[in-house]
């Protein structure tokens, strides 16, 4: 059995990466993600891995993509300003289907913003920061153990679906220290590699899984990689049917595997009058508030999003059939709340709680909103109108 340890979130991310098989890191250290680079700079060389401090974040992700094409499990870590610079290469990795892991420890923004204070302002950037149609996988830890688990998962999903996966942490979770016991064993997924003769290999071939095997450069397979829309062999194409196939492939592999990718935690949803939807550090305040509300006799429930993108659309629209009020606390002016509002059309109300002053949303602030909307258990529960329910059901 592993021993309990007092670990920082950033260290847990670094350890998760190492345990998942990360053997390459290129980055440009930036608060509040710096410890990840520091730890991997010390640890990777000991394990025959490589660490490169690059000249900037554009080059960092470039190096990571290159390392991955050569067969490495590669990662970079940054914060808002660096994440902005990485968007171009991020799109390149989506398009060329190169697995890699990006950690963005969110700080206040825009621009240099608040280097040492928390925010959750990059949720939409993580989804739509790079141009063009694509699907993103974005995971969000809310504690130190989750930093470890989610980083392992990010590598696994990235290898499985041949695409970049983003770990979207926040300053508090990344700098916080808690006692954790890391698991003795974890599941590690390595990308499929081709076993066909060299001349038959097509890097973007049709595959029942939706993901073609990826040969590492230098293993004898020769293939072409371009950011241009490409055919199955990897050469640029302008044929409408090939263009469509290319875009479908990079979006379908996420869309068709939502069940595998989406991970949420549900709390007391069954009879909830009010459901809080939260992620990252805010989910801790939310859970404290929901537990307190239950203790005081209010029917509060909660969904913690460990996967933000793809968004758990079905779960929420289903929850809205029973739950009339949704509360969405976020350390931004309102990002996830927009998605929630779109999904829960049959709910009576969607209440945002926003804070963007570098401070956290307290459990008390969430509890006040819950109390304002939930009924005490003794009171008869108002049922949402039947007609309304049917009208929005598909």
């Amino acid at each position, binding site marked *: 059995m592993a021993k*309990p340890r*007092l670990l920082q979130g950033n260290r847990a991310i670094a350890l998760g990466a190492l345990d998942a098989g990360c053997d390459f890191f290129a980055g440009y250290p930036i608060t509040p993600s710096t410890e990840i680079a520091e730890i991997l700079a010390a640890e990777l060389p000991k394990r025959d891995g490589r660490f490169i401090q690059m000249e900037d974040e554009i080059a960092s992700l470039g190096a990571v993509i290159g390392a991955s094409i050569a067969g490495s499990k590669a990662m970079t870590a940054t914060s808002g300003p660096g994440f902005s610079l990485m968007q171009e290469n991020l799109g390149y990795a989506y398009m060329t289907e190169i697995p890699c892991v990006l950690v963005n420890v969110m700080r206040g923004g825009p621009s240099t913003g608040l280097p*040492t*204070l928390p925010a959750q302002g990059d949720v939409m950037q993580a989804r739509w920061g790079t141009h063009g149609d694509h699907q993103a996988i974005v995971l969000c830890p809310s504690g130190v153990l989750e930093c470890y688990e989610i980083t392992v998962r990010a590598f696994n999903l990235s290898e499985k679906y041949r695409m970049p996966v983003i770990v979207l942490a926040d300053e508090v979770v990344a700098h916080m*220290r*808690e006692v954790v016991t890391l698991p003795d064993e974890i599941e590690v997924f390595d990308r499929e590699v081709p076993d066909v003769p060299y001349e038959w290999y097509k890097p973007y071939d049709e595959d029942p899984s939706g993901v073609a095997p990826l040969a590492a450069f230098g293993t004898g397979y020769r293939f072409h990689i371009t950011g241009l829309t490409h055919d199955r062999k990897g050469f640029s194409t302008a044929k409408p049917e090939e263009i469509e196939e290319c875009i479908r492939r990079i979006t379908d592999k996420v869309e068709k595997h939502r069940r595998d990718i989406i991970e949420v935690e549900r709390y007391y949803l069954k009879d909830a009058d009010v459901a809080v939807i939260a992620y990252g*550090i805010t989910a*801790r*305040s939310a859970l404290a508030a929901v537990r307190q509300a239950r203790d005081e006799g209010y029917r509060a429930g909660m969904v913690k999003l460990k996967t933000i993108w793809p968004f758990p659309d079905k779960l929420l629209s289903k929850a809205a059939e029973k739950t009339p009020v949704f509360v969405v606390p976020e350390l931004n002016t309102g990002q996830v709340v927009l998605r929630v509002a779109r999904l829960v059309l049959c709910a009576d109300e969607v209440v945002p709680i926003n804070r963007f002053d570098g401070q956290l949303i*307290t459990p008390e602030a969430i509890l006040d909103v819950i109390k304002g909307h939930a009924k005490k258990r003794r009171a008869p529960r108002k049922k949402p109108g039947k007609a309304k329910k049917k009208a929005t059901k598909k």
Partner: protein
Amino acid sequence: MDIRFSGFGGQGIIKCGLITGKALSLFDGKNATLTQSIGPEARGSACSSQLVISSDRVLYPYIVAPEVLVCMSQESYERYEPDLRDGGLLLVDEDLVRNAKPRGKTKMYSIPATRIAEELGNKIVMNLVMLGFFTAITEVVSTGAMKKALPGLVPSRSLELNEEAFDRGYEFGREALAGSEKSEEALV
């Protein structure tokens, strides 16, 4: 229970939280969650580390009104003292915080931590002097646990000096407690 260590960057404020957090959570069987607040500067800016201690899992990691406040700079005293809970404990380095005084039911204990560290030969261990003092006054963590927490958090070549600094602070704290009990008796 909520504790805040505060001072300026470079004094070992975060380390105070780390050592106490490690001692409590690994050796005293408590749940401790640690956060830090720092300015964008590397040294000299206001700095604090917060410790939330509970027998259950800690959900909300920030503190609002701490029961214990340790101040190692004037700025931190002025900034954080108003938040100290009524009836809380205020611990200050008496050479670095001027005009500190208790308010309402708060109790104040002071120690020349930096001066004691200088006497020991290196003022860098002033945070350990303060931690020894903190351990004696607050009794929230055992000395055994604190000593056990040191290896790995202080450089091994200076472990002895750090332990000595801790002991000096602890003794100072015991004496201060005995002294304040006596003066309370005198009042009665």
